[in-house]
């Protein structure tokens, strides 16, 4: 039995097709990454899985149950970590978690015990009786997660759970996701941070303009671009002296991206053009600090498939 099965799902807002005839299958025990830029249709898809939005066409099955007919039964087994932190600033951490967990039928001492466990899990034990209005962004994000897991859901949906937080909190959240998965929950993790998806997800679907443009394990996705390599040239000096068009004229160069003082050049494996790339920099009198031959990543996959960066 699949944890989630989506068949030919479509959602329109007027003339705009937010989700365009997508089909997906997510296995029990997976950490499934839904990757795509803002507006790709990730949140709309999630809102349909959780029953917040109706479907225009297609079907969703969660744990073998039709989402159209078994809404409450499905909801009882889902924990949602919304993209926007959804907590009450005038309730303590414990009160927040207890309130949301109580909506799933927990009561009395069991409710309190599970709430405390969820706060311990997210590293907020010391702040159990504190009001979130004094919390940092990272702590609020962790409380946002605690509110979603106290009822021990079988499926946890995390919609961009690390937006706008510091590196330490992000690391803590990613570790939490992996631990929750080890404890038996299936995770759907949406993000436009490619490195997060690469770090934790067992399988990935890439969405763009409402469609799933690629799906599989990271290895399978990378295989889409096995005929490519990536050369990263670190320079000292002004990057604005580099003309992307001129670099693209070098035979074998597929795409060029400039990120601060690093020039990322995707090349065809069939043509050896490293000497010509180096020649370009020396001719322009741009000092090279370092050259790396990088393995392609999901960002490269997305760039190859759509011609755009994930965070464009």
């Amino acid at each position, binding site marked *: 039995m699949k944890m989630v099965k989506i068949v030919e799902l479509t959602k329109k807002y007027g003339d705009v097709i937010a989700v365009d005839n997508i089909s997906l299958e997510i296995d029990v025990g997976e950490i499934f990454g839904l990757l795509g830029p803002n507006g790709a249709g990730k949140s709309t898809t999630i*809102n349909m899985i959780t029953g917040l939005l109706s479907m225009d066409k297609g079907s969703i099955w969660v744990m073998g149950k039709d989402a159209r007919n078994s809404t409450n039964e499905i909801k009882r087994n889902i924990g*949602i970590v919304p993209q926007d932190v959804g907590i009450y600033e005038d309730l303590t951490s414990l009160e927040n978690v207890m309130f*949301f967990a109580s*909506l799933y039928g927990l009561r009395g001492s069991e409710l309190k015990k599970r709430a405390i466990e969820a706060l311990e899990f997210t590293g907020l034990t010391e702040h159990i009786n504190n009001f979130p209005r004094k919390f940092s962004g990272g702590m609020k994000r962790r409380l946002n997660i605690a509110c979603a897991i106290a009822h021990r859901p079988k499926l946890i949906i995390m919609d961009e759970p690390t937006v706008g937080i510091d590196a330490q909190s992000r690391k803590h959240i990613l570790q939490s996701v992996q631990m929750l998965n080890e404890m038996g929950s299936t995770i759907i993790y949406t993000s436009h941070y490619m490195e997060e998806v690469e770090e934790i997800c067992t399988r990935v679907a890439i969405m763009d303009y409402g469609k799933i443009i690629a799906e599989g394990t990271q290895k399978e996705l990378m295989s889409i671009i096995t005929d490519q390599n990536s050369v990263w040239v670190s320079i000292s000096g002004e990057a604005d002296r580099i003309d992307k068009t001129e670099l693209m004229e070098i035979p074998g160069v597929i795409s060029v991206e400039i990120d601060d003082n690093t020039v990322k050049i995707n090349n065809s494996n069939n043509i050896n053009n490293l000497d010509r790339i180096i020649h370009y920099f020396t001719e322009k009198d741009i000092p090279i600090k370092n050259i790396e031959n990088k393995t392609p990543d999901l960002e490269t996959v997305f760039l190859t498939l759509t011609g755009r960066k994930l965070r464009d």
Partner: protein
Amino acid sequence: MKNIGPVFIKELKHHLREKKANIMMILFPIALIVILGAALSSMFNTTKIELDGVKVLYTNMGGSQLEQAFTGFIEQAGKMGVMFEETDDSNLGIEMVKQADYSCYVLLKDNPRVIRLYKNNRYNFEANLVETLLNAFVERYNAISEIARENPAALADVMDETDKEFYYIKSLDGKRKPTSTDYYSVAILTMVLMYSSIAGMSSIRMEKSLKTGNRILCSPVKKHEILIGKVMGCIMITILQSLMVFLFSKLILNAYWGDNIGVIIAIIASEAILTVSFGTCIGFTIKNEGLSVGIINTVIPIIVMLGGGYVPLDTMGEFVQKLSVVSPIKWTNQAIFRLIYNSDFSYVPVSIAVNLIISALLITVSSIVYRKEAVW
């Protein structure tokens, strides 16, 4: 329905922790009662009114039994300063009252045995007083007639008892008329109560602005459970706030609230339901926050003014008095005042029904809009 409890408790916590709103809803009305009670005391007569000038005309076309009882009634009313004069001409009696020569005209008839009362609104308070006296007389007369029919032996005891003390006087509370503090304790409380609609509205808007509404909807809780829990929480806190103001006015300011406190609290509770329902409906139907607050701040002063919340209705023109029927506050205030000063329960069901029927309509609209909303 099991999820109403957690939503209700959460709502109570929000409201109890909103210090500014609580201060506004408790201290502000108290301050207003104190200020207006002192500043406008000249608009109100002092605690007792002079009844010496109350003139009532009557025609007795009833039988001798009724006449005998009514004569006793006239004697006792005379001790209170209500002077009855007899006329044989009923048309003349009605005309004299129309011309305001008399406060009221009473017509006693037999077959069927009825007592008709014609009042002149110029003597509103005096006429109400006579009406209350008459009501008490009729009740007592009917009771004695019933006893005479069913158990004549007990009649002597009853009559002895009534001879000792005239039984209507107690209900009139010794000719009391509201002081400015008495008046504004009621009027300000029912006015400020209306502003609890902001609490109802904020309760709905809060879930949208905090992004918690969607989170709640992702759980296996039904929309009507959320709505009922939230509305009940707001109503409870509004009633608690009102009780604080009520107790302060009664115990500290010595405002007079009469003897039917339980019924008055029931009327206030029905207004709390109305005001929270109004705010909830605004919260659901008007998406723009500024516009929502604007509507509340426009509608409430109008219905409060029409309800006599700022100055007594009888000091305003006839047009305003006629228009006042559209204000639920008018019915609420009227019911409370008549209950306090006339022991008149007749407006209680009307005021409670007006408040609850409007509330039901507003909650129905809210639930329809909420049901249609997918994502908050």
